[in-house]
């Protein structure tokens, strides 16, 4: 049952990922990417990380992609069907394929450590995923967390400066 479900999700994820890079219309690309994000959210649920799934949908699909779609509409980009660079496509595909082979090979052949951490699926269910993540974040990773907030602030300032025509 779960394998079947996994297979379907995988299929959808890969197809929509391919659509992202093959659609001529950026809007369609963006929508396909949203689809991919959903699939990933599903994976996260299956990996006992419902909080991650919810955040994935909220942040990626609900915020970042909306921003991108907004930009696409704002710029009113025409479908770029004018020039075709076959050699580029072929070259890119070869590199991509090579990367794929390489990565898969490395992942499969690489040594995988045995579970070391304390958190099993049952335990997560018992304690609540959100709580665990929160604890981790605000204890062990407090400094990085604060640094990301500075990163976001910088990003906001940068975006405002860039988007403004005249300062």
């Amino acid at each position, binding site marked *: 049952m779960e394998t079947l479900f996994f297979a379907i999700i995988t299929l959808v994820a890969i197809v929509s990922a391919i659509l992202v890079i093959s659609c001529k219309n950026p*809007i369609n690309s963006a929508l396909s990417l949203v689809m991919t994000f959903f699939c990933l959210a599903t994976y996260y649920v299956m990996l006992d990380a*419902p909080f991650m799934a*919810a*955040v994935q949908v909220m942040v990626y699909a609900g915020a970042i992609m909306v921003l991108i779609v*907004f930009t696409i509409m704002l710029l009113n980009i025409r479908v770029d069907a004018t020039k075709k660079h076959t050699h580029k496509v072929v070259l890119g595909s070869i590199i991509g394929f090579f990367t794929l082979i390489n990565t898969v090979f490395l992942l499969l052949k690489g040594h995988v450590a045995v579970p070391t951490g304390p958190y099993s699926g049952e335990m997560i269910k018992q304690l*609540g995923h*959100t709580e665990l993540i929160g604890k981790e974040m605000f204890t062990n990773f407090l400094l990085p967390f604060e640094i990301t907030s500075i990163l976001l602030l910088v990003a906001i300032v940068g975006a405002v400066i860039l988007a403004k025509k005249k300062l």
Partner: protein
Amino acid sequence: MGIEILGLPMMYYIAMVAKVLVAFIFVLLTVAYATYAERKIIGHMQVRLGPMRTGWHGLLQPIADGVKLFFKEEIVPSQASTFAFLIAPLIALIPAFITFAVIPFGGVIEVAGYKIPLQIASYIDVASGKVYDVNVGVLYILAMSSLGVYGIVLAGWASNSKYSLLGGLRASAQMISYELSAGLAIVSVFMLSGTLSLNEIVTQQSAMGGFGWYVFKQPLAAFMFFICSLAEINRTPFDLPEAETELVSGFCTEYSSMKYAMFFMAEYANMVTVCALTATLFLGGWNGPLTAEVPLLGPVYFVAKVYILMFVCMWIRATLPRYRYDQLMHLGWKVLLPLSLLNIVATGIIGYFIN
């Protein structure tokens, strides 16, 4: 326990389907008669009558409207992006409905010896008698409602019309802005409840004879959440995306017949959802007197609370004029956002001292 499928009793599936059906039909009917009620209520508030002709006091008006929309010609503008144009109403409608999956609309009832929690995405652990549901329920709702914007934005863009596009742009900007404040407003609720599970939140409010509502502990958060929710679902006074005086009909300018009906339904379904969520988070959900003795009272209280909130929505619509766009942004970013942040800080400090 009878037949089991995939380790779950048959009854589980039957109850699940029944709950989905009940919730779905409830939302649909509410949507239908919300349109009627809205026209009636606003009519009377403006010392008019509202619909009077179709059926007794116009009771059949929603059906007539539906039939009319159903039989109208399907029009797709020649310059529109056909696929996006067709899919947009669906994208708008579906999130509005699926959020209902995690909202508890009653306690646990027992049918034919089988205990059924009145929440779609939940099950009861018979052994412990504990109801398990999606433990990130609120986040789920926030995630889903953030998806509703896609329908509107797509509709605006796909129509290839300047009014529609402006409507879509306004919708996306508005929803992103207010989602933030809405999310922060309910953080204070989580801080009190310590959980994201809606079922848990409702249970926590059952104290004080069913009146331990968070609205008493977090009135500001309740108020802000409700306002932000109105903005997120484009209700007056925040209905800028379809401001008919400026944008003809905003993102749905080019829509007609069933596709238009879907947007219409989505809007009202969203209203139901938002009201249900507010009721759940702040008004004790299905809690009320005597629910323990008569479990069926739970849904009744819940529905009553939802309807009262919907009435408030309509009341606001009858009262307030539409905000200007800059006022809207001002309110969202400069008033509600700081207020919600302050609320969190205050909740944290007070909670720290109390505990």
